[in-house]
């Protein structure tokens, strides 16, 4: 039962406090892109959650093997990358066979798998010596955090885009960056990290 509570606690922490998109900048490109396409947000987030959770679980199980555990960080990364590639190609092949999707679905699948957020989670789990339950929770929670980040960016930017008081050079992309920076600062504040000290 302990693993279940570890998982839930890690997921809540990943969504509310750790938010890797704002706190670490992982997957921020995709989060900003998704903010402009809210209808596609949940399918994208679903794919990200799938890749991050499956990869994180396999990587963490491999991490428990003594032969892998004693390797240095570079070799660990090579192994994690190999796992992600296998998960990606197997998932892609299975999707083609079972779902027979169009090209756009496969492109979306690729963009979700080849994402810094997905690759960052096994590395973070390895560094923080997480349990299996925590690893699953972090992976799932990070996917949900991605949705939270995209929705916050989308909702805020919709309002900012129609603010006529913003000077012309700041309209569009510049103000979006500054808005995301402010959101990121707010989330960093939740972690208790000193911003100016």
């Amino acid at each position, binding site marked *: 039962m302990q693993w279940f509570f570890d998982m839930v606690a890690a997921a809540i922490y990943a969504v509310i406090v750790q938010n890797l998109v704002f*706190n670490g900048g992982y997957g*921020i*490109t995709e989060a900003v*892109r998704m903010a*402009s396409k*809210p209808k596609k947000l949940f399918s994208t987030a679903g794919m990200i959650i799938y890749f991050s959770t499956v990869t994180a679980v396999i990587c963490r199980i491999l991490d428990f093997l003594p032969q892998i555990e004693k390797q240095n960080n570079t070799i660990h990364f090579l192994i994690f990358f190999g796992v992600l590639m296998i998960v990606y190609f197997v998932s892609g092949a299975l999707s083609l066979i079972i779902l027979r999707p169009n090209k756009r679905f496969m492109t979306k699948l690729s963009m979700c798998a080849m994402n810094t957020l997905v690759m960052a989670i096994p590395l973070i789990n390895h560094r923080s010596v997480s349990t299996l339950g925590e690893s699953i929770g972090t992976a799932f929670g990070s996917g949900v955090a991605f949705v939270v980040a995209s929705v916050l960016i989308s909702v805020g930017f919709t309002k900012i*885009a129609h603010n006529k008081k913003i000077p012309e050079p700041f309209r*569009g992309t510049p103000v979006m960056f500054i808005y995301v920076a402010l959101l990121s600062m707010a989330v*960093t504040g939740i972690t208790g990290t000193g911003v100016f000290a």
Partner: protein
Amino acid sequence: MNQQKASLKQMIHQGGFLRNPVLVQVIGICPVAAAATSVINAIALSTVFSVSLILCEVVASLLLKKLPRWVRMGIYSIIGMAVVFPVMYVFEKYSLTVFSSLGIYLPLMVMNSLNCVHCEKYAVKNSVKLSFFDAIASLLGYCSILLAVGLIREVVGNGTLLGFDLGFDGIRGLLMPFGGLFIIGLLSAAHKAQIIRRHPERLHEIETKFTLDEADDKEATLSYAIKNRFKKSS
């Protein structure tokens, strides 16, 4: 020869300045916002990424045109890995300071979206020479922003330059991802101001488009999506 030079010059102006990968296309933000906290870090990331992107674009243009897109996307990451892995190995063995300060952002260069987007938008549709030029143009734009952000953050955020103390305490917050995003926002505004002043007729070209293949989704500009949403809600 003159035509080639003009073409390269135009591509650098178009890809590096006018449609800068970071400031306009909003691609590959993660390393710039989070890892470019000093000039040394920015140089290390730029070097690794330059080799990776040039190799990816050349290989994509030479060998990968006939493969399906989803397979090509995986191969770009594998090529990136072939470049990043030896660099990581050397850094971990001989330069632990740089390795530690880059953290997990060095291996994450493998997943940089600039690789996928440029290979898919350009390299697989053009010759090797043009793909190489495109890589150079994009890299000039990308690496210049990496270096600028690294320099500003090291000086203002840390109070040092190339490791030498400048005699004042920096604003530590600038070393965090939000500091990086804030600086990118200011640089983006400065870039847009330059476009308004020097090329007002080309202002529409710097509208951000967020799709991998523009032909797939003509309604993919951020401004279009927002206008459309606003119309619907009102």
